[in-house]
């Protein structure tokens, strides 16, 4: 073992660089793309966004003849095209949660904070990289879902809607924006709760449990309160129509962005103060 018994020379580093926000972002990109679990979550999100509308459109098309006028009136082509968003948001939320809780559960966070002891650049980088990836990842699926479901429904003129029709392009792209924001919201929850199961449960509570619970309130209270929930406010991003019981597109979008900003702000506040 002569190689071992000799003192090994550590190769020197020729130049030394400082930590910059851009470099931390590059590090986070490397982290994101090098995990199989995140790749699976992404795959699931993409698949659900495309397959559910296709399935929904195919069923609608094949059963159209046997549907009552009432049922037919209930089918809106844009709802069909964006049916996957409601489900794939869970995959994106899990992804957002894992981006941060995965580091706490494995201890990676200590390595991350040793490299970037100011900590906040890590949160900003995670959020930004994840937001860009989530949007670019989900934009093609919502577009594919729209055109594929329209193609499947091509025999039914009443279910045809043009992409150039006012508000349609905005709603379809809004679906991808919504998924991106849901991911950011979940990332913030993950950074606050720091535990995968707890963070996913918290997210599911806010998005899937509280909204139906609102129905037990007297209906005028329900209508007054429900539209301000994160899920309802966010929904306006991909809704073509807005009624008295929902916020307008602008108000809903602003409120949902506000919720996201709030969770990230709380996460940032706690991040620099808590022990790891």
């Amino acid at each position, binding site marked *: *073992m002569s190689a*071992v*018994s*000799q*003192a*090994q*020379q*550590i*190769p*020197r*580093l020729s130049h*030394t*660089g*400082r*930590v*910059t926000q851009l*470099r*931390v972002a*590059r*590090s*986070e990109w*490397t*982290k994101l793309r*090098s*995990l*199989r*679990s995140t790749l699976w979550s992404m795959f699931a999100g993409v698949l659900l966004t495309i397959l559910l509308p296709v399935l929904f459109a195919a069923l609608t098309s094949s059963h159209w003849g046997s549907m009552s006028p009432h049922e037919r009136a209930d089918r809106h082509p844009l709802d069909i095209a964006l049916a996957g968003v409601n489900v794939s948001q869970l995959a994106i939320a899990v992804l957002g949660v894992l981006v941060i809780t*995965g*580091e706490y559960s*494995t*201890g*990676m*966070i*200590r*390595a991350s*904070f*040793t*490299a*970037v*002891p*100011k900590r906040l650049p890590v949160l900003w980088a995670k959020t930004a990289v994840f937001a860009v990836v989530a949007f670019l990842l989900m934009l093609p699926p919502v577009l594919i879902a729209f055109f594929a479901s329209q193609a499947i429904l091509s025999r039914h003129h009443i279910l045809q809607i043009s992409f150039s029709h006012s508000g349609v392009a905005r709603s379809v792209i809004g679906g991808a924006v919504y998924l991106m924001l849901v991911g950011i919201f979940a990332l913030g929850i993950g950074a606050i709760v720091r535990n995968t199961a707890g963070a996913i449960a918290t997210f599911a509570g806010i998005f899937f449990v509280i909204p139906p619970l609102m129905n037990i309130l007297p209906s005028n209270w329900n209508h007054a309160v429900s539209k301000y929930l994160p899920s309802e406010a966010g929904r306006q991003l991909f809704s073509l129509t807005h009624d008295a019981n929902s916020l307008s597109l602008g108000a809903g979008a602003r409120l949902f962005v506000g919720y996201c900003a709030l969770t990230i702000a709380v996460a940032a506040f706690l991040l620099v*103060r808590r*022990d*790891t």
Partner: protein
Amino acid sequence: MAEGLTKYYGEQRAVDDLSFTVQPGLVTGFLGPNGSGKSTTMRLILELDAPTAGDVTLNGKHYRDHTAPLHEVGALLEARSVHTGRSAYNHLLALAHTHGIGRRRVDELIDLVGLHDVARKRAGKFSLGMGQRLGIAAALLGDPSTIMLDEPVNGLDPEGILWVRHLLRGLAAEGRTVFVSSHLMSEMSLTADHLIVIGRGRKIADMSTEEFIRQASGGLVLVRTPQAAELRKALLSGPDVTVTAAGPGLFEVRGLTAVQIGEAAAANQLVLHELTPQQASLEEAFMTLTRDDVEFKAADLESEEAVL
């Protein structure tokens, strides 16, 4: 480096008013029994945990205030700090990116720690020893001026232990500050130039390893001679020398080295049959030193059992 460092976890006191400085160019061993606060001190240095009181700086600055922390300090922490789903290569690459360090450096270090063949495997599948090697690679990534390792030989095979010992000595010889914790006195006596010993979060000793060994052995020399009375007279002429009879023709001498005793005997033309410097085992010395400060003692457990 550290001044009055104190850390409580709730009611639990982990580090208590600890002050010390670690010198460059030396290997400083950080010793203490289980639960004495070594790992906590290291987390406080890296500002992963915030101290309850006191202050700790590195090269004059708080760790957080360094613009390129990985060039200042490379650390191996006690608990694994690697995402189990990521490969060793990507783990190091992600850390390297934060400081604009290139892929070549990552490859160099993977070769250096001997992880070449498994660099693309998920770190979660690594053995304890492979995990330690990956941690050491991460610590050396930024070519840091200070290296801080928490029980680096934990889980390493004898070859690995030898490798770490040479590595640490080499790093110190290059003028770097090397701060390494252990609860194995024997390992530290071979590696460290300087020792800081803590017990229950308090500093017990801060001295060179040589000094520690000298104090531990107590300078005891065993002498056997047929001319007992004459030798006793010859030796007792010096100050602070004690000679205790330990059997027929057998003495324990304190305050003189074996060399001094041999020369005194020769000068007086006395015959010696035995001349043996006694080394108290370092492990024993360490235990004596920290006896009152051990968090979990076997004796405590026994007496508790007796009460029950």
